[in-house]
């Protein structure tokens, strides 16, 4: 008899185990799914909306389902000349944004690396002081110095040029800080070995430090590219020539037509342009993400 009760007990417990739901796991997943939806649904809605014509959007608001104006909208967004002077289309703006993003990223990396190199490797009298001065500029965003910056660029005749767009924003405390931390973790013996091998400061930088910083450079590149790509205020201020407009400005330009009152703003087209504006940063992140993670986490060289 004892045997029989035992086996039944085991049988029931196994069935119970099979059916048991781990509520903690379910809870975790609900939170994760909700979080993911919170991030993705707006993007999806913009994407869906980008396939409707302006009138539908104007009447019914954002769309959940795809419409039939997909190719028309994207075609218009990319190739139709618009703006006040009819001199700018999506491709131009895409190019401008790319130039701005790349110029930012590359410029900031070069300047940041060189500043960090000077601070870490040379016996400067006020190196630490200089570093903290640079570091505190993190607390002063562009907006604080926007008027003097504009004044300087304007008086140098650099308004409406790529130089004027890029150069004033190129000094980067963030990049300097990250490269400084990275350089300080490079083993001392490596520098000494290079000195004995006859590498002067310039050669050491190019031959050893730059290749060693690859992952860090990639991480900085992503951050700075996206930062440059999303710039709005400075380009708005410094460029009045529509052929220098960036994508981020272009989106606003389309919506602004509404304010002028004449026509219905091209909502579908604006949504399409927003999607186009999202693609390059996403691609860059996907392309560099392995290096990005390595650059931010890897500690051993």
């Amino acid at each position, binding site marked *: 008899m004892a045997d029989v009760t035992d086996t039944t007990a085991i049988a029931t417990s196994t069935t119970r185990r099979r059916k048991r739901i781990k509520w903690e796991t379910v809870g975790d997943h609900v939170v994760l799914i909700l979080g993911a939806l919170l991030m993705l649904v707006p993007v999806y809605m913009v994407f869906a909306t980008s396939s409707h014509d302006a009138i539908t959007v104007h009447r019914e608001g954002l769309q959940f389902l795809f419409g039939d104006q997909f190719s028309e909208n994207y075609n218009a967004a990319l190739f139709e000349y618009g703006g006040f002077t009819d001199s700018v289309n999506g491709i131009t703006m895409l190019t401008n944004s790319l130039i701005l993003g790349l110029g930012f990223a590359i410029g900031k990396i070069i300047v940041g690396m060189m500043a960090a190199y000077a601070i870490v490797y040379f016996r400067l009298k006020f190196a630490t002081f200089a570093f903290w001065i640079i570091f505190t500029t993190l607390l002063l965003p562009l907006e604080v110095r926007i008027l003097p910056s504009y004044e300087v660029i304007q008086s140098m005749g650099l308004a409406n040029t790529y130089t004027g767009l890029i150069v004033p924003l190129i000094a980067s405390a963030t990049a300097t800080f990250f490269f400084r931390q990275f350089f300080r973790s490079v*083993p001392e*013996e490596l520098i*000494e*070995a290079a*000195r004995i*091998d*006859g*590498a002067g400061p310039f050669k050491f930088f190019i031959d050893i430090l730059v290749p060693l910083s690859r992952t860090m450079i990639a991480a900085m590149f992503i951050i700075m590219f996206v930062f440059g790509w999303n710039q709005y205020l400075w380009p708005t201020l410094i460029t009045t020539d529509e052929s220098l407009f960036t994508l981020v400005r272009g989106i606003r330009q389309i919506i602004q037509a509404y304010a002028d009152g004449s026509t219905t703003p091209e909502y579908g087209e604006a949504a399409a342009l927003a999607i186009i504006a999202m693609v390059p940063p996403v691609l860059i992140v996907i392309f560099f993400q392995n290096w990005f993670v390595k650059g931010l986490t890897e500690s051993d*060289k």
Partner: protein
Amino acid sequence: MAKVTLDRVRKVYPNGFEALYPCSFDIPDGELIVLVGPSGCGKSTLLRMIAGLEEITEGELSIGDRVVNDIDPANRNIAMVFQNYALYPHMTVANNMGYGLRNRGLPKSEIAAKVREAGEMLNLTELLDRRPSQLSGGQRQRVAMGRAIVRSPDLFLFDEPLSNLDAKLRNQMRVEIRALQRRLKTTSVYVTHDQVEAMTMADRIIVLNAGRIEQMGSPAEIYGAPASTFVASFMGAPPMNLLKGTVNGSGVLLDGGPTITRAAPVGHTGPVTVGIRPEDIELSDDGDLPFDVDIVEELGANRLMHGHLGGQPFSVSVNKDMHAATGQIKLALKPAAVHFFDTEEGRRL
């Protein structure tokens, strides 16, 4: 190849710390000299000054016929092997070895030839295209050696090159480095804190302590006639036994009882430190020194007995054939094997 001369070379750090008191010595052409001492004794500072990585506060350093005090490390025609190898992680083995030559502006074909030659010498031929991260510790050490060799320098500098290797590999590399140095006949300075490395590799040893040279001499001299209690206890494993005592006629009365007969320092009276190497002692029933054995350590080839002699700690090393057990036994000394040191200054009498 060159002779190295140090003339009253001194190092004082900006904070006033005297890392190295003025020291002078010559390293004849082709000799391997080992700087040995505990951490912080100034041996690395001395090596780095020879390399040019550290400035010389005072004195004159010459390599060959040149005074090199103010010459850049790159132009001293030296090569250095670092403790952590200091290989360039992003370069292949071949590029690591050839980097110095490239900076000297040698043509590519010549660099490749030299790298190949060094690679063959060090059994690295198959590894020339790999990166340092794909190599084992011993292989990395070899690459570091290769990087030194290809430059055909006047002087090799080794900064504790074996301390990151495991014991077996260390023994092997020790022999290899020694053989290589003999073959190339390049003057070398080798820094280590390991007295076994020092004893086995050196033509001459310099023992440093707290920024001063304690003794300079061949391994046999250092071991056989240590100049001070510091050298006596630093060189040799297990270290020399040091017993406190007082000179008493033709013998020494040890603190705590027993007397050493038939051996006394000449022309010295009063307190004295007696040094006896653990292996210079015989177990003998006729012996006059009672030794209380507390612990016996089995080392295979021999046994170490640790205990007390008249209350002072004492060790004896005996052959594996000898019976060793705890308890009191009698020891006999050979008078020639007894060293005497000044108790206060530690200097040899």
